[in-house]
Structure formats: structure tokens, C-alpha cells
């Protein structure tokens, strides 16, 4: 049983609505990364460069991985 513990965060809950482990959070941030880029290309890229989206989603990803 102890094998499993390090993967679960010591703090029982992050801000995500479900209990997550590291894999889940990486997954969620990748999903967000792709989604942000797709929406950005569709609606915002005419005005704002796509790199902004990249920076934003990396920051968001970092937050999710750290605190999700």
C-alpha cells in the first residue's frame, strides 16, 4: 500500500474538482494547452500573437501541476 502514497499529494485536495495524482495533472494541463491554442487560433490570433497563448498555457499548466 505504501507504494502508492508518494504519488498522491500530501494535501488531500487541490483546486480541481477531483482527486488527482501527478499524471492526471499533467494530462489536464496538456488538454488545456491544446484547447487554448485551438481557440486562440480561431478567435484571437488576428489581433494577438499565438506565442501569448503559449506563454499563458504554460503558466496555467504550471499552476495546475503544482496545485491542482
Amino acid at each position: 500500500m505504501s507504494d502508492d502514497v508518494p504519488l498522491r499529494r500530501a494535501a488531500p485536495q487541490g483546486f480541481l474538482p477531483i482527486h488527482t495524482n501527478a499524471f492526471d495533472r499533467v494530462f489536464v494541463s496538456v488538454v488545456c494547452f491544446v484547447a487554448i491554442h485551438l481557440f486562440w487560433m480561431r478567435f484571437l490570433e488576428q489581433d494577438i500573437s499565438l506565442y501569448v497563448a503559449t506563454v499563458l498555457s504554460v503558466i496555467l499548466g504550471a499552476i495546475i501541476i503544482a496545485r491542482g
Partner: protein
Amino acid sequence: MKRDRKGLSLLFWLFSSLITLFPIYWMFVVSAKSRVELFGAPTFLIKSFFSENYWATLTNTSFQGYMFNSIVIATSNALLVTTLSLFATYALSRYKLSGKENIFFWTITNRMAPPAAFLLPLFLLYTQVFVVGDWKMFDTRIGLILLYCVFNLPFAIWTMRGVVDAIPQELDEAAFVDGASTWQVILHVILPLARPGLAVTGILTWVFAWNEYLFAATLTSVHARTITTGLAEFVTVTGTNWGQMAATAMLTLIPAIIFLSLVQKHIVAGLTFGAVKG
């Protein structure tokens, strides 16, 4: 009262069988018609049996080969997949593997890919990477058997997981206490109890492998062609040979029904299962 319900249920089953069978019956009607009869007002009854459609397929040696390939590929794949999925779900159920939920979910995603774009890399793998001397994985049965695992394993693991999880751990714990090895536990405790689930998984994986078209069409050429790709041979610029196609499809039903009846009785075996547990 009771008799009435029996009659009613029989009526229901007859009716629903009629609906289920109609398209198959129509396939049969088409298979019994010559080409010119098809292009006219449809009739439900068969006036004459145009047996040439069947003979043409039965006497065609390449179709005999396709049928043989299909049987070998589907059966080997079903055996391989059910075995591997039993192992995998046993591991997922009984061992504390780190991140096993994620692994489980990842295995499932392998079934989700739309096949078209993945054919190119697979073609390259089969013709240029998996090559030993003169031997290529392209156009071999083993190539298809392994490839079909990609969409069958996720399915099998998902179905089997519920089954294996539902088998009480106390049973194998007890066996371990009696000194059984892991193999023996799987063979003598898990396997008998998982039989209905395994049977269903076996049937369905067999069916998926038997019916697969796109991969088989792209990754085989002459030697490992399956019967479904053979069906597409009837669609040509000079005319779809509907009659012979339907006849061939009817013929492919025969091995399928044999396989089904061999395996299906194991599903019923599960009916007594609740008692074992209780």
C-alpha cells in the same frame, strides 16, 4: 395468466427476431438473385435461386484462402487478446501498480484513433522497419494479429476489468494461504469465475478482428488477405457484383455462427455464478 405471458413473450421474441433478421434476410434475397433481377421492383419472396453467386465464391481458390486467413487471424487474435487482457486486468485489480488508473485510461485511448491517418505510419513500419532479410511484416497474418490488439486490447481490458474486480479477493487470498502459486490462482480461481466475461470478450474481439476492413486492406496484399477485404473486391468501376458480394457475406456468417455457438454457452455458465459468491 402464466400461459398468456408465455405466449406474449414468444410473440415479442418472434417480432423482434423478425426485425433483427430482416436485413440478413434481404442479404440472402440479394444473394439469390441474378444481377438483372436486382434492378426492378423489389420482391420479398425468392422465385428462383441463382446459385451461381455461391458457387463462384465457393470454387474460387483465392476466396478459400481469404476465409482461411480470416479464421486464423480472428481466432488467434481473440485468444491472444483474452489471455493478455486477463493478465493485465488481474495485475490492475490485485497489484498496487503506481499510476494504474492512468495506465488503464491510456490503454483505452488506443482504440480512439481514427484509423485513416494511422495507416501511413503503419504501412511504413510494416514495409520498412519490421523487416528481417527478405521477410516483411507486410502481408503476413502475424502482422494483422498483433495489430488488431491495438483496438481489441483496450476493449477487452475495459470489459474484463469489471469482471475481475468483481471476483472477491478473499478467494485468491485463501488459495495463496493454501500454498497456490500466482499461476495456479489465475488458472484455478480467476479463470473459472471470469468465464462469462471472458466468453463475451472472446466473442466480441473475434468479431472485431473478423470484420476489420481498413487495416487489412492496406497492410495485406495477396497472402494474408481477409474475407472482408475480399468483399470490397466486388465493388468495381464496371459494376458492383451485389449478388456475389451478398453470397460471400452469407458464407462468412457460417464460421461466425459456429464460433458463436462454441463460445456462447460459457455465458450461460455464469448464471450459477451468484451462488458461488453468496
